[in-house]
């Protein structure tokens, strides 16, 4: 690999790293054809982890970080002084194929600054995906960041080659968008999401291929004053209206050459973690947005207890729950019991009466679940009424603020 290409790679990987998503999951299982390269496993694979604890699954780069937009939160906005570079379509294809052959990556996550026009940029992104699929028989994972300002027919074409399309919402409210991202427009973002959503649904029904791993988005946390509750309600809306696969929450991170209208301090990473936990409650634990809102104080999640525990502490009258009798919905509400543990409990109790040490073998969260559970040999004695319960179950505050 020559030094010019290496230099571009350093600049354009650095410029892409603020996108939280790196997932390679959700694509239908595929194997390489006779002369082709690549496969997808369904669940995705993390090929390495960087010291920030995040996984490298895809080659996550920008086609270019030249950009005509001026979004305050973005390191690549036109008014920033970062170093700029631009890959050719062929260079991105070569890097993807050669990295893939060495088993470094699952595929490509390609995004770009806007150059010339949104349409021009979108065409370049699609050309990369098309060349990988057509010229190299590439069956690995391709995630394209779509450009909502591009003409709709270009998004239609991108979906033919990509496994996943995403459009970043970035800012959860129209007002923040106007203040921090003057060229962006909430209506066109939601319009493009709706377009992708309905095309994915149609293609699925007609057994055609269009972004088979669905669409996702990202919102930045802590760059504006939006509360956790408002973020979660927004996500619930996105999941419901556009059939999104994932909403990523990215704690606003200080960037080199930051803009003056941004807050100086990053939000605690723990806040981002709590949002993911709440998001999980929506998607896998049958919580409604109202339930999740109950777990907040003035719209914000506590940093020292997780949202499910916070909800349980506010709803103590609904506990303890009998692990041998309660229905699945209620078991899912027990702090410490994950969805898989609940499934195992429901299966096992058909054949035996569960004692506390049985539960310990079915779930790794027994310590937290214990005050909320009745088992064959265990009944918490008024433990749910104890005032110090929260303090006993809270996590030490310094977690995740590492240095």
């Amino acid at each position: 690999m020559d030094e010019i290409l290496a230099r571009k790679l350093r600049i354009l990987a650095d410029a892409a790293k603020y996108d939280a998503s790196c997932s390679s999951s959700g694509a239908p299982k595929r194997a390489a054809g006779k002369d082709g390269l690549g496969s997808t496993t369904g669940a995705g694979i993390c090929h390495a982890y960087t010291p920030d604890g995040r996984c490298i699954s895809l080659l996550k780069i920008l086609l270019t970080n030249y950009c005509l937009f001026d979004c305050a939160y973005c390191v690549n906005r036109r008014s920033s002084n970062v170093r700029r570079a631009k890959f050719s379509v062929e260079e991105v294809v070569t890097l993807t194929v050669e990295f893939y052959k060495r088993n470094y990556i699952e595929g490509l996550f390609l995004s770009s600054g806007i150059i010339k026009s949104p349409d021009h940029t979108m065409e370049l992104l699609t050309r990369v995906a098309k060349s990988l699929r057509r010229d190299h028989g590439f069956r690995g994972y391709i995630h394209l960041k779509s450009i909502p300002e591009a003409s709709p027919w270009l998004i239609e074409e991108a979906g033919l080659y990509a496994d996943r399309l995403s459009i970043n919402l970035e800012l959860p409210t129209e007002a923040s968008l106007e203040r921090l991202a003057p060229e962006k427009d909430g209506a066109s973002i939601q319009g493009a999401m709706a377009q992708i959503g309905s095309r994915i649904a149609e293609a699925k029904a007609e057994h055609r291929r269009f972004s088979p791993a669905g669409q996702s988005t990202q919102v930045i946390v802590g760059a504006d004053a939006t509360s956790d509750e408002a973020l979660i309600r927004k996500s619930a809306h996105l999941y419901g209206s556009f059939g999104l696969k994932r909403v990523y929450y990215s704690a606003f991170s200080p960037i080199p050459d930051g803009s003056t209208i941004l807050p100086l301090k990053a939000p605690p990473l723990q806040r981002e973690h709590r949002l993911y936990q709440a998001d999980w409650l929506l998607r896998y634990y049958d919580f409604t947005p109202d339930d999740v809102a109950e777990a907040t104080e003035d719209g914000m999640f506590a940093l020292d207890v997780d949202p499910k525990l916070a909800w349980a502490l506010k709803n103590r009258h609904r506990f303890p729950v009998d692990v041998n009798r309660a229905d699945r919905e209620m078991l899912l509400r027990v702090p410490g019991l994950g969805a898989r543990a609940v499934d195992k409990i429901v299966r096992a109790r058909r054949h035996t009466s569960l004692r506390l040490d049985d539960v310990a073998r079915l779930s790794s969260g027994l310590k937290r679940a214990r005050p909320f559970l009745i088992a064959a040999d265990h009944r918490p004695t008024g433990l749910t009424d104890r005032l110090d319960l929260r303090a006993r179950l809270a996590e030490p505050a310094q977690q995740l603020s590492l240095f």
Partner: protein
Amino acid sequence: MTAQAPRHAPSPAPRRGPALARTGEADRAGSGPESPAPGPESPPLRTVLLGPGADLPGFRAAVRGLVAAGVAPEGVAFASGAAPGLFAPAPAPAEGAAVPLPRAVADLIAMVVPHRDPERYALLYGLIWRILKGERQLLEVGSDPLVHRLGLMRRAIQRDLHKMHAFLRFRRVPEAAGTERFVAWFEPEHHILEAAAPFFVERFRALRWTILTPEGSAIWDGEAVRFGPPGRREAVPPGDGFEAGWRDYYESTFNPARTNLRAMRAEMPKKYWHNMPETAAIPALIRAAGTRTAQMIEREPQMPTKRQPVRAVAAMADQDPASLDALNALIRRSEPLVPGATQAVLGEGPVGATVAFVGEQPGDQEDRQGRPFVGPAGQLLSRAMAEAGLARDRAYLTNAVKHFKFEERGKRRIHQKPTAGEVSHYRWWLDRELDFVGPKLVVALGATAVLALTGKAVPITRARGPFRFERFDNRFQGFITVHPSYLLRLPDEAKAEAYAAFVDDLRRVEALAQDLAS
């Protein structure tokens, strides 16, 4: 019979499926004394000697023999990989019948056999025994200590497989005559080489590759995997032309403001690091992280040093096709959504036409000639238009879908109706096209055109006649009639009447057009 030599031949034993229900391979296992049933007081302990590593066929054969002889788990000990002669040679057991087990149990056995734990065979035999003695649903009871332990072992294997698929790194070795081979060294925790290989076959089928481990090697030449003797780390070249670039990527994608070493080590334990070239960058990244973050926060925001690209920003919004010709150029460049068509068939007629006709999609003739409504249905439309007094050359004619979709039957290309999804895919273009032409009246010919113009399915027979296409906010009036190809498909006795009704419709269209034009 004694211990097996390492088996290098590709194992015919399936990794999945009801492995124990298969027959054959019984000769591979050895088993202990021939005494049929252990006495009640001091049961003589049988010792079953299995091959090294993951000896699924051997275990399967042993289980058959033991079950047939009614040997309880307490009466048997399993040993594996030992050199011959350590145990008293024993005659091979009488071959037992296949043992019927639930599918999930067979899967669990195949997964756990590669585990490094010497107790694995005894634990599995304990499980099999209990299931055969009546606990058919035992696997459902995840709280049972044995099921729990085997579950943990299965998880360990899954994790080991996953990490091998994730962390193995190939290096390129040029071979004779311009070919190349990719070689890797990996140290799995369990005996999983054979189980891990299919993943690499599916992914790198077109490459030639070799995976070396301390226990054995796997070689792919494009046809089949050969499993061979243990490899040596030194057999892998010391570097690869893309490794520096990969390390650059690894360094650049790390965000120092989010350093979280515990999370990294939990997923990528240190024992893997020495075979992953990128991890050499970790110490320096960690050392510099604090300073880099502090610098980012402390640095005052700076004025942009370059001039603001005002004109480029203004020009950026100007990307929409500016004319029908520009739009048509885009459509012509596009590829068919369903492959096969020769070319995109564009609309035809004057910009500013009072009436626009929208059909379904080009047919065989249209696809060859690149013009709309030139096939049999198009000719019928021309005839009907002439009878109704509509001049074809003053109307605009186009299709909802721009490419021919067909099924090949012999030499004939049989038209296939576009799906709803395909119609919406092409709808953006139809909308822009009508914007540029600016008709006062749009005639939808048939259901597909109606679908394109309304966005929903509308029954033609009931909606036939004047119609409001709400999507277009009264920019033009609408009219619905049948597609001329429908007339061609009717039986002869019905044709005349239907054709007359079609011409009647076109007369109403002509009358409406006269009103609108004045």
